Each structure stands twice: as C-alpha cells, then as structure tokens.
C-alpha cells in the first residue's frame, strides 16, 4: 500500500511539472496583451509600456515561468494583471462557489443515478429498465446549457421558485446559499446522472454475470439480496472512476452553466481572464484544475484499494 501510494505520488509530481510547462508556454503564445487590453484604444504607447513594466511583463518568458512556478510551490500564485489582487485569494473566493456547486451537483447526480442504475439492472429487460435507459439516453443527449436555459425559463421566470441566477453568498446562510445553487446544480447533475446511471447499470450487469453471484444465489440469496450484498461493492470501481471524472469535469466544466446563471465561479473567472489576457490568472487556474483532476484521480485510486482488497497488497 505504501509503495503503491509512493509510486502514484511520484508520477503525480512529474505530471504536474510537465503540466505547468505546457500550460505556461501554451498560454503565453496567445495573441493579445494584458496591458493594452487594460488601457483601451486611447492609450498612448508609453503608457502601455509603463503598465507592462509595472506588471512585470517586460521580463523574459523563462524567468517569468520560473518565478511563477517557484511562487506556486510556496502557495503564491502571483498577482492578477487586471484585478491586481493575489490570484490565490481570487481563486479561493471562487472556489467557495465552484466547489460547493460541484459537490452539490455530484451529490444530486449520484443520488439520482445510483438508484436508477440499480433499479434498471435489477429489472433488466423489463419495462422499468427500458424506461430508465430511455430516460438516460435522453439525458446524455441534452446539451446542459440548453437544459439550463429551459430550467431558468420555467422555474425562475415563470414559476419564480428560484432566482434566475447569482449566488447569495454563504453569509446569507447555508440554506439560502444552497437554494441559489439549486438550479445550476440540477442543470449540471442531470446529464451527469444519465451517464452515471448507465455505468452503474452496466457495471452491475457485468458483475451479475460473475460466478460468485451464482455461488451467492446457490446459498439461498434472492436475486435482490445477491445484487445488494455482492454485486454493489464490486460494481463500485467503474462507478467510482466515473464519479471521479465527473467531479473534475464539474469543477472546471461548469463555465457555460456559470455563465447562464451568472455565478462567480472558477469557470467564469478563467473565461473573463482569457478575454482580458490576464494570463497569470489563466495559468494558475488551469494549473489548479489540472492539479485537482490529478488529485481526484489519485484519491479515486486510493479508494479503489478500500473497495477492493486485491489492490491493497499489490505493489
């Protein structure tokens, strides 16, 4: 276990270093200059030069990379070119929206998908299965931004059950905050739930075909008991993989949804930062997202070992 952990950790670090390279140099070749963006069309060239030097943009790429990277190691992500606040703090603020949203959506999707998948698997080939699978097919096919538009139209504008968007902030109390995240969470969760339910079902069906399920049935367990006691935990590995992937996706991929619901999340931060050429913000956020994905995968791998004893001993 320790060795497994250490080896994964090592490859994780190498991945992160390579990722930082890729991110920095790819982003730096984007045309457009943060200083001219800031100063607009009436700015004079010397003003732009003054701002560039104030922002440290006149240094060489490589030395900027080094200072960015070493800064990151110490938890200092630099200062945003446009906002002029520490990137770390901006990101932290945004995470207070994005992270709860991702967790909320993931919880919703898991709560919907797992029962649906289990139900479908246990009724394989019957009407219930076909209905659930039909619904998931539809869920996979619906673009989530379109779905979000429809949700706003129905629940915010017509029924006025929810506000059309925005985030009241955690100061307003956890319930109010969750309430304001509900529509976006649903918009994110349903398509994900559709995928997850399909994975759950097929993983379960694969497991149900295994010999040990037959053994369990020969002991006198009913189909359902066999599914719950022996099928579920074994089916968890593919499901966990997908949940891990989805979490990373939700963290970074909510850009469009954040736009539709004007949430001050990470996605919108990158989006704004890209258009303002606030490169350091883009770099840091992308780096952070990559880091999050790699970490989540790492954690998922570790939970595999919790689920499956065969992986514990393995080197």
């Amino acid at each position: 276990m320790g060795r497994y952990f250490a080896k994964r950790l090592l490859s994780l670090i190498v991945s992160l270093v390579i990722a930082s390279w890729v991110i920095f140099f790819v982003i730096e070749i984007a045309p457009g200059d943060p200083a001219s963006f800031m100063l607009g069309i009436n700015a004079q060239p010397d003003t732009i030069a003054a701002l560039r030097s104030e922002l440290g943009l006149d240094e060489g790429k490589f030395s900027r990379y080094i200072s960015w990277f070493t800064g990151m190691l110490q938890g200092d992500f630099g200062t945003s070119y446009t906002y002029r606040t520490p990137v770390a703090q901006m990101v932290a603020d945004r995470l207070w929206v994005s992270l709860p949203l991702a967790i909320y959506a993931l919880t919703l999707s898991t709560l919907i998908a797992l029962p649906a998948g289990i139900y479908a698997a246990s009724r394989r080939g019957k009407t219930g299965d076909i209905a659930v699978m039909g619904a998931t097919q539809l869920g996979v096919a619906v673009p989530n931004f379109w779905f979000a538009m429809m949700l706003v139209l129905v629940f915010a504008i017509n029924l006025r059950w929810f506000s059309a968007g925005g985030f009241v902030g955690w100061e307003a109390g956890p319930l109010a905050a969750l309430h304001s995240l509900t529509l976006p969470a649903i918009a994110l969760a349903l398509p994900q739930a559709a995928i997850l339910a399909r994975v759950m079902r097929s993983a379960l069906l694969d497991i149900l075909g295994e010999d040990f399920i037959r053994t369990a049935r020969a002991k006198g367990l009913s189909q359902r008991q066999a599914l719950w006691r022996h099928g579920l935990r074994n089916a968890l590995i593919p499901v966990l993989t997908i949940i891990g992937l989805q979490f990373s996706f939700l963290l970074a991929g909510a850009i469009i949804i954040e736009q539709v619901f004007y949430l001050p999340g990470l996605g919108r931060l990158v989006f704004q930062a890209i258009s303002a050429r606030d490169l350091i913000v883009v770099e840091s956020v992308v780096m952070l997202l990559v880091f999050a994905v790699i970490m989540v995968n790492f954690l998922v791998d570790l939970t595999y070992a919790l689920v499956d004893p065969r992986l514990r001993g393995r080197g």
Partner: protein
Amino acid sequence: MSLLEITNLSLSIGAYPILRGISLSVEPGEILAITGESGSGKSMTALAILRLLPNCTTLRGHLSLDGTDILAQSETEMCALRGQKVGMVFQEPMTALNPVQTIGDQVMETILLHRGCPRAEAEKEARTLLDRVGLPADRFPLSRFPHELSGGQRQRVVIAMAIALRPALLIADEPTTALDVTTQAQILTLLRDLVRDYGMGMVIITHDLAVVADMADHIVVMRKGEVVETGSTQWLLANMHHPYTQKLFAASSHKVALPPASATPPHPVPLLEVRDAVRDYPVARKRLFGPAQHMRAVDHVSFTLHRGERLGLVGESGCGKSTLTRAILGLEPLQSGEILLDGTPLARTGLAADQRRKMQVVFQDPFGSFNPRHRVDRLITEPFHGMADAPKGQDRVEQIAEALHAVGLSPEDAGRYIHQFSGGQRQRIAIARALITRPELILFDEAVSALDVSVRAQILDLLADLCGSYGLSYLFISHDLSVVRNMTDRCLVMRRGQIVEEGRTEALFSTPQHPYTQSLIAAAPVLPNIGHEAARG
C-alpha cells in the same frame, strides 16, 4: 423415497431444447456422477435442480427434492431451499468467491441467512467448518480475502459454504477440473469424506471418467441433452450397452499406437539443446527503493532432444512449462543459459528464418490460436512469413492442400473461416499450420488438454500417424500423465521451474524415483480395467 427424484425433465432456452426427458434419482448417502462430453447438458441439469437457470428457460417434467416438488416452489421458497436443503460447488474456484468479502463473511452468510442466529455464533460455526475442510485457524483466519488463497484452498472455502447447513444434497459441478492432480485428489477425498460423515446425497458432475469410476456409486451418461445410459458404477463399468458410453470409455483409456522411435544413427548434434536456462519475471518491488524483485519461472533447466525423439514434459500448473516453451520459441529472453537449435544458438532478438522453419508449435486453445478474421489458407501459411523461398501461386496451393490432407481435412477447407470448424478440426488445422514448413521439431504445449476425450483420442491417433509418415520429433508438454505416457519415449518432470526427474517414459512411470513424481503419479486417478475390457467387447 429417493432424496432427489428427476423424472422426464425437459428444458429449453428460448426455442432451443437443451435437456430432453432426463430421469435420475439420488438416495441419501449416495454419490451420483453425471458424465458426458462438453455441452451435453450436465451443468444445466445441476442448475435446474436449484432452479438457477438463465432467463427465458422453460422447465417441464418432475423434479422433487426430499419430497418437495421443486418446480412448484415459488422463488422465495426456492431461496429458502437453496443453501439449506441443497448446496452447490462450482467449477471455477478462482471466480466463485466474492473478491471483496472475507472468506469468513462468505461462509457465515449461508448460516446467518437461513438460521438467523447471532453473529458470534455464526462465526464460531464458520470457524468449525473451515477447520473441517482443512483450512486451520492459525493459517486461515476468517479475515482472509479470497485472493490470498490458492485455487485448491478457495475450492475448500466454496465447499465449506455449500455444506454449512448440512444440506441433504450436495451438487458439485466439475469441482476439480481447474485444479492440479494432487490438489484434485485431496478435494475429491474431502468431498467423499463429507458425504460419508454427514450422510448427504451428492451429485458430482465431471467429464473425467477416471474420477467417475473412482467416486461414484451411480453413473449417468449424458449426450446432447439426453441420458443415454445409467446404472450403478460396478454394473455399468462391466455391462455398458450404449455405443456412446462404450466409445466414451474407450476414448478415455485410448492407447496410441506410437511407431517406434526411428532407429537412431545417433546424430552428433542434438536437435534441441537447452543449457542452464533461467527465466525471471520481474515482480513489483516490496518497497519503493528496495531491490528489484523477480520470480524465477524457469530455474537452470537443461535437457537435450535428439532427432526422431519424442520427449515429454509434465508438471503441475504454473511450474514453468509454457514459459520454457516460449523461451525455446524465442518469444522471451533468457536471463542466463542458452538454447541451441541444431547446434546454433538462438539469437536474443528471436529466431532466424531458417530456425523457424525447423521448429513449429501447436498451442492449447483451439479457439484462440487463430485469427477469426482470416481464412484457413492464410492462417496455415503464416509460418512462411519472411522466408525467401516461401511458395507462391500453384506451389502454395499444393502445399496447403498437402498439409490439410495430412491432418485429415480436405483442400476445399482452405477457403473457410475458422469459426466454421469444430474444436477438433481446429486443432487439426493448428497441426497443419505446424507441418507446413516441414519442421524437424514441433512443440506441443497442452495441445490436447482442451479437447473432449473422443476428439482427443482422434488427435492423438493423428499425431501417431504423422510420426510414422513424417518422422516427427517433438516436445510434448502436458499436465495429463496418461497422455504423456502414451505419446513419448522419454520424459521430463518439472516442478517449480526445475527439472526434478528425467528418464525413459515407461521406466519413469512404473518406477518413479523422485518423491514429487511419485506423488504426482499416485494422485492421478486411473480408470479401472473393466471399462477398458467392456469397451473392447
């Protein structure tokens, strides 16, 4: 009244009839063996008793267990019955256990489910059971996971689960096919003891007639979903009537008329010489910066094979036989030692074209050794790859026809795909592929292990014929002692990567020297002679 009474049971899956009018019965304390070739419906019969059949099956007829009409039971009632009244042991111990639960939990489950006793009590009971099946507490605590056990040990756990509630009937479907001969002997003994101790009835399903003859009180022979013959073991072995039964027994004890090894003007250079071969597989390190670990699959093996000689290699599963084969074929590098073919060492990068011409191979799995997307002509000419003088055009057609003819197939078969052939035919094609370059040496790695007895007998006969017509030399690898005894002049015994004994086949089998060889031979079940006599008659 019998413990298990099946009369006129028919079963079909969808529109396909699988079982047709099966009748059999088992008394308490009696062992009934069901035998027959692959696909004859043995497993289906067993599953029908538990009503654990695939979807869309229809069952007709009568099936009663201890007076209960099984077919009339609801699913809930069946659940109560399974495990309680009837236990089952499956073929594949490696997959029959839930990998994520401890063996203790899995054994206890049967008890908790039916008896609803406190956990502690179930735990105690499970412990006793595991002790009973030969898994003592000090080495096998309840907290072990299945992957920490060997195949035989896992099979013991499965048996413990099946007998937990002392069911009246125990069904064992090929319980030892996946195990070594020595382990097989132990498991069979255990089963027999349990039946005797608990007075259970048992249905054992096996295609190994030697096991049948050894274990069973009663025998049922099945073919294509029908019972062709049934009777007490003694009686049946002596008086088998049905031609199929006779054929089956004849094939099992089939003796091949191997032509004598070509009179040897002993060639100075051995055809194949293996010198001190070592093959290590890397194993994951125990600690991150610990020394690199490895597993020695072939451990300083040396032997020679002369022209015209037929050499056997026996040993338990995992002892390194296939690894050695792959090394000889140049598919895997050696860590040390060398292999010489006709005096020239094999290059590290694989075999040269002329070496490949001299040496060919036939693998075990007739279903997996061919690319399903190619036609037979393309498949069997594959060994010509990279040879400068590979036949072209008409010449090629002729050589294909000749090879197919040699293995008893017709030249028309060259245009067919592999899925259009039966397992036995496929193995013939595999042999044709090996023959087509006119090799001097063929390696047979478990070449007949996957075949049914009757098909196996045909293939062995074919090999014997080819020995006559082609003057073959071969290395015959198998875990089946009787086959090796039949097919070879000289024999090597391998254990944990090492050759422990070597000698003329007859001598080695009649007077084994090494204790391992002795235990191997002792464990192998033997078909009593009566069957053999009857079959001849």
